[in-house]
């Protein structure tokens, strides 16, 4: 057995596996508004991130997504419970002073706040927050930047452009800080719209300079485009990829919305995937590119992807079998525990143990070595 098939051999897991795992959990979250499975998904993503997070800067992004999720819930409650009369129930919690608004608009300012409206807003907000946290987990475990290395050959140019943009974005913030510091040294105020104008010019100028330098450097190193593909074949692959991705979008919408006609879902998704794959295959044949130290796709990758998929599949089966447990008939009743769906979600915690441990250099530093360094 080769070492990359061992779950104990330290290495970085393929970022694609993390994204598929997280998308499986997000798909499961999109099919229920029962807070029990939603909270389970939330803690499962948090646990796996805590267990398999690297020391890279993007690994901290889960915390940011968690904060964003809390803000989403708060906004949802304010807008739906305080500013809308659409879901107010008979259990009135308290009454705020009301500013009269024509009742046709469905908007209200103040007035009664009922338990039903607050709970409904909380459950709906929790669903969105959970999906956000799944994306946050994917981002912090397998960064979007590492994932960009695996864009298919047909989309090579777009991938390179994205990598450059992601690399230069932090530089832009540093630039802005420098220009601002220089303004302050000259005694100019760094507030208001006028300062923004003064700030924008040097920052844009610097970005343009850097782009030209980078373009020259890449050109001299042979990154310039030298493919000899004909115009027609280029257009056909472009059309195939675009049409395929469009089909994938419609298919995913049909599958997740759950309300549209049956053939919009899975058949459209599969058809779109097939078209996109054909397009990318033909497009990829044009260019032969090397990959620097590619991550293998071995047994741990299959296991991680499989657990995410298992969570999604059990949720879809549970929705078919006991829809009443996953779409609450009443928010004030004690939420039922859908055992099948919960079991599926708990399977998805396995990557905390099945994903290979990180190489020592990528692990977050523990407190002790740092103290030793200080002592030495």
């Amino acid at each position: 057995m080769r070492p990359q098939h061992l779950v104990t051999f330290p290495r970085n897991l393929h970022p694609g596996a993390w994204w598929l795992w997280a998308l499986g959990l997000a798909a499961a979250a999109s099919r229920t508004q029962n807070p029990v499975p939603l909270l389970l998904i939330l803690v499962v993503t948090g646990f796996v991130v805590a267990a398999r997070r690297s020391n890279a800067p993007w690994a901290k992004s889960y915390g940011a997504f968690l904060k964003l999720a809390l803000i989403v819930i708060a906004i949802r409650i304010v807008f739906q419970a305080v500013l809308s009369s659409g879901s107010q129930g008979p259990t009135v919690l308290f009454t705020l002073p009301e500013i009269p608004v024509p009742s046709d608009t469905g908007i209200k300012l103040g007035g009664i706040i009922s338990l039903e409206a607050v709970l409904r807003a909380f459950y709906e907000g929790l669903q969105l927050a959970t999906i956000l946290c799944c994306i946050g987990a994917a981002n912090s475990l397998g960064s979007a930047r590492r994932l960009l290395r695996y864009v298919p050959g047909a989309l090579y140019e777009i991938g390179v452009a994205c990598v450059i943009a992601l690399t230069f974005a932090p530089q832009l913030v540093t630039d802005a800080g420098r220009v601002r510091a220089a303004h302050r040294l000259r005694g100019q105020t760094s507030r208001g719209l006028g300062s923004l104008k003064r700030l924008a010019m040097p920052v844009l100028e610097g970005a343009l300079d850097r782009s030209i330098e980078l373009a020259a450097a890449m050109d001299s190193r042979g990154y310039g485009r030298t493919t000899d593909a004909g115009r027609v074949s280029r257009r056909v692959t472009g059309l195939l990829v675009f049409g395929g991705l469009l089909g994938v979008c419609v298919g995913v919408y049909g599958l997740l919305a759950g309300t549209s006609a049956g053939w919009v879902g899975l058949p459209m998704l599969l058809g779109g995937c097939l078209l996109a794959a054909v397009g990318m295959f033909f497009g990829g044949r044009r260019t032969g590119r090397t990959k620097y130290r590619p991550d293998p796709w071995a047994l741990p990758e299959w296991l991680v992807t499989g657990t995410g998929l298992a969570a999604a599949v059990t949720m879809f089966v549970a929705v078919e079998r006991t829809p009443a447990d996953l779409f609450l008939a009443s928010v004030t009743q004690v939420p039922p525990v859908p055992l099948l769906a919960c079991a599926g979600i708990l399977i998805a915690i396995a990557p905390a143990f099945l994903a290979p441990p990180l190489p020592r250099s990528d692990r977050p530093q523990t407190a002790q070595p740092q103290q030793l360094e200080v002592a030495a």
Partner: protein
Amino acid sequence: MASSTTLRRSAGVLISLFVAVFVAAGFSGTAHAVDGYKFWNYFHATDGAWAFSQKGASAYEPADGTIEGYRFGTTTANDTDGLPPRADLAEVNFETICGAAEADVDQKRVGVVIDYGTEADAEDTTPPAPRAECAVVDADANGLQVLQAVANVRIENSFSCAIDGYPAQGCGTPVADATDTTGEQPVAFELPADETVEETAPAADPAGDDGNDLLFPLVLAGVVVVALGAGAFALNRRNPDA
């Protein structure tokens, strides 16, 4: 070389044609296949006849002594009359629904008629028996609060999707090849018995009665959530880098 280019070109043209047909069929198909929607129709009983409500239940304030009607069923997109409850208003009227109910000074009595629709509109299930209830609510309660006083309502994005968990999922589900239903025969409604009318009776909760059966898995799930959350927190503390 030349033959392979021609081959590729013709294949390309064929595939692009296929894509065009595929996409066109996709969009025109969604536009034409859906002629109707399945949802809860909302009615007011005025002058002994059902009138399709022009407002949402939350924007309408029913007066004391009136009757509200709800009917689940398929309505075509260009039907403006809605699908009324199959209740004979001569038999199901305010007297028979709310005759036994008593209201305080600052309360009002509103009859609520709930018709779960036909077998044809139910998906693999039998719709519950149609019933009528008397809601005794605060005098300024709106139609939605009146309904929620006698039934469980699943609201999604401020749209009433299900009454008493029926239908179990979906909201305004599109129906292909829908036809308008007309001239339905009235059906028998389950009226509240004289002695069982309660004041502001909260919706009967069939699952909530056996509290212990329901509470144990919930406590278990709660313990799992707390344990995993604590585990994640502890793992994070071990890696103070973040």
